[in-house]
């Protein structure tokens, strides 16, 4: 993911410089060259179109495989509060709430950190070994496998959270919505930080210089030039993080407490859709149960699509 963004930025930068075109070959265009051009065009079209087919294929598969559960449970699947595989009662409401609660809470926790990193690296110290170290470290956060976050969370973070919970006098299980939001927040920082940094760096120098020449301080430049110029990019980064948080499975499963009850507070244990699927899929031993888990996957898919679409709208609104 990070690598892709890097490539994206680099391409944009090299576009600014201007793509060098080999001039010596111009006179020797042959039919073969032109035909190869056509083949290449078709090839990239099919490969790119293949992505659309694949996504639609996934959607169709999910719908078809979950038809058994859709028939038996109907729409109450969405707001049913009981998940009881023994009696074939399936309601995903607690998991839906758990997923959205952990993701948004993680987003709220992570935003100050990722924006700080983006501004620090993009505006204050874009060059030098300290910023490079910081940048690489932040990107490394995204490279660490999530199961490692899970282990670390369970062994190190949860006991600290438990002490914190005891200190403020709430439920002291340690694991729960709050603990998983913390883990998620750490995991999603690099996504918005990296994209944010590239955006901040792309603010045209003459705009900033104009502001400085009018006597603006650095903070004023950030506030009235950099942030307005980059807000759609920063928001796109936040959306990317949110997508990551919604689908994260392993680390969340290990620290969320995995109860099929509606969480009473952010310190209560809960469950997310992704972790229910991961937990129960291997031993789903009768057809309706398996189908209900696939329908859960379908709901997660749709939630992600809807949130992404809203995000796109907002990004568009910002850039106007």
């Amino acid at each position, binding site marked *: 993911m990070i690598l892709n963004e890097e490539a994206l930025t680099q391409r944009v930068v090299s576009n600014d410089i201007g793509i060098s075109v080999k001039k010596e070959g111009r006179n020797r265009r042959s039919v073969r060259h032109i035909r190869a051009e056509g083949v290449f065009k078709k090839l990239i079209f099919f490969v790119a179109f293949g992505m659309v087919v694949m996504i639609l294929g996934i959607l169709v598969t999910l719908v078809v495989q979950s038809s058994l559960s859709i028939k038996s449970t109907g729409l109450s699947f969405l707001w049913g509060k009981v998940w*009881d*595989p023994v009696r074939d009662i399936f309601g995903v409401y607690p998991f839906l709430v758990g997923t959205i609660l952990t993701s948004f809470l993680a987003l709220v926790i992570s935003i100050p950190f990722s924006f700080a990193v983006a501004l620090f690296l993009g505006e204050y110290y874009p060059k030098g070994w300290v910023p490079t170290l910081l940048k690489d470290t932040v990107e490394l956060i995204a490279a660490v496998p999530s199961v490692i976050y899970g282990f670390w969370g369970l062994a190190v973070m949860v006991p600290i959270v438990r002490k914190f919970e005891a200190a403020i006098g709430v439920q002291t*299980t340690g694991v729960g919505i709050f603990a998983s939001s913390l883990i998620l927040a750490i995991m999603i920082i690099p996504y918005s930080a990296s994209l944010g940094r590239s955006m901040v760096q792309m603010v045209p120098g003459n705009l900033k210089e104009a502001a400085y020449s009018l006597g603006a301080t650095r903070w004023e430049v950030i506030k009235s030039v950099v942030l307005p110029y980059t807000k759609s990019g920063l928001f796109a980064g936040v959306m990317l993080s949110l997508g990551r948080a919604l689908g994260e499975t392993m680390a969340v499963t290990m620290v969320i407490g*995995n*109860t099929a009850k509606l969480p009473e507070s952010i310190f209560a244990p809960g469950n997310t859709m992704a972790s229910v699927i991961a937990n129960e899929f*291997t*031993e789903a*031993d009768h057809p309706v149960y398996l189908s209900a888990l696939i329908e859960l996957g379908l709901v997660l898919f749709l939630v992600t699509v809807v949130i992404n679409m809203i995000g796109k709208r907002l990004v568009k609104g910002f850039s106007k």
Partner: protein
Amino acid sequence: MLGGVAMLVSGSVMMTSCGGGNGTASGADSTADNTITGAGATFPNPLYSKMFSEYNKTTQLKVNYQSIGSGGGIQQLTQKLVDFGASDAPLNGKQDSAMMPMAAVHIPATAGAVVVTYNLPECKDTIKMTPEILANIFLGNIKKWNDPKIAAVNKTAKLPATDITVVHRSDGSGTSNIFTTYLSKVNTDWDSKVGKGSSVNWPVGLGGKGNEGVAGQVKQTPGSIGYVELAYAIQNGMSFCQLQNKAGNFITPSIASVTAAANIEIPADGKVSLTNTEAADGYPISGLSWILIYKEQKYNDRSLAKVTKMLKLVQWMIHDGQQYSAPLNYAPLSPKAVSVGDALLKTITYDGKPVLQ
């Protein structure tokens, strides 16, 4: 240098012999016949892996076992993608009908147990549990460790006034299945409210993923109680409860007491739940783990040679293979279970004729 030459020579000999083998029609079949695939339960995987690698040393038979969970194993067998399945729970009615018209034979291959583990730093004595207390803790009716019901059977133990935190498995598992099957048998309330299965709607408590997840939660949380596999608890030196069995004795879970639990009359089809065993010295939350094989083996162009090899393998597993159980903390099969398994293996047919005599 000489060794290198020797290796080269033997290598080329092997190549020629392989080339020769492939030339004939039977050559390709014999390599396919020498690989058996299976899929299913994760619980017996360490034992099965050991058994298959030992068996491979003497017979060169290659067994490819995927420990993807009992549910997955049953599904792969239903779709006839594997030669045998493995499950911690006998097939239920729904699954049996899904497999029709092919009936599957359940051969007991090993036994395991689920122990109740707890974290009470102040309490040095081993906690004793009755089925009634255990069910009520997991139902959320007993909330404190110094509850009079617990104190009544633990007269000498110093029980603290801490809250009980229940920890259960979050992932669907054979361990949960055995545990909930036991609770359903001993407590009608549990049976009607929760029931049995590899995943259930737990009335109280936190979920941990895998044995290590439950163990981790229990170790971290004072006053917690959870359940893990016997082998896992022994290997990690965890403290576990003595549990009162049907005969009224308090039994410490161990390899011996699990084997004892399986030493009861086993029905001819091998499908028996050992939970709440009648055996006087048997640990009550024990269970068999089965190998599932279709009764009629002539399907998907399978050769008789392959079927014979597979059945011989299973036969070896329930006899000589059992020596590897105890070192890995699995309970060896009881003599009664072995004889039922032997009889079942002889009922398996190829094109209507029994394979093993």
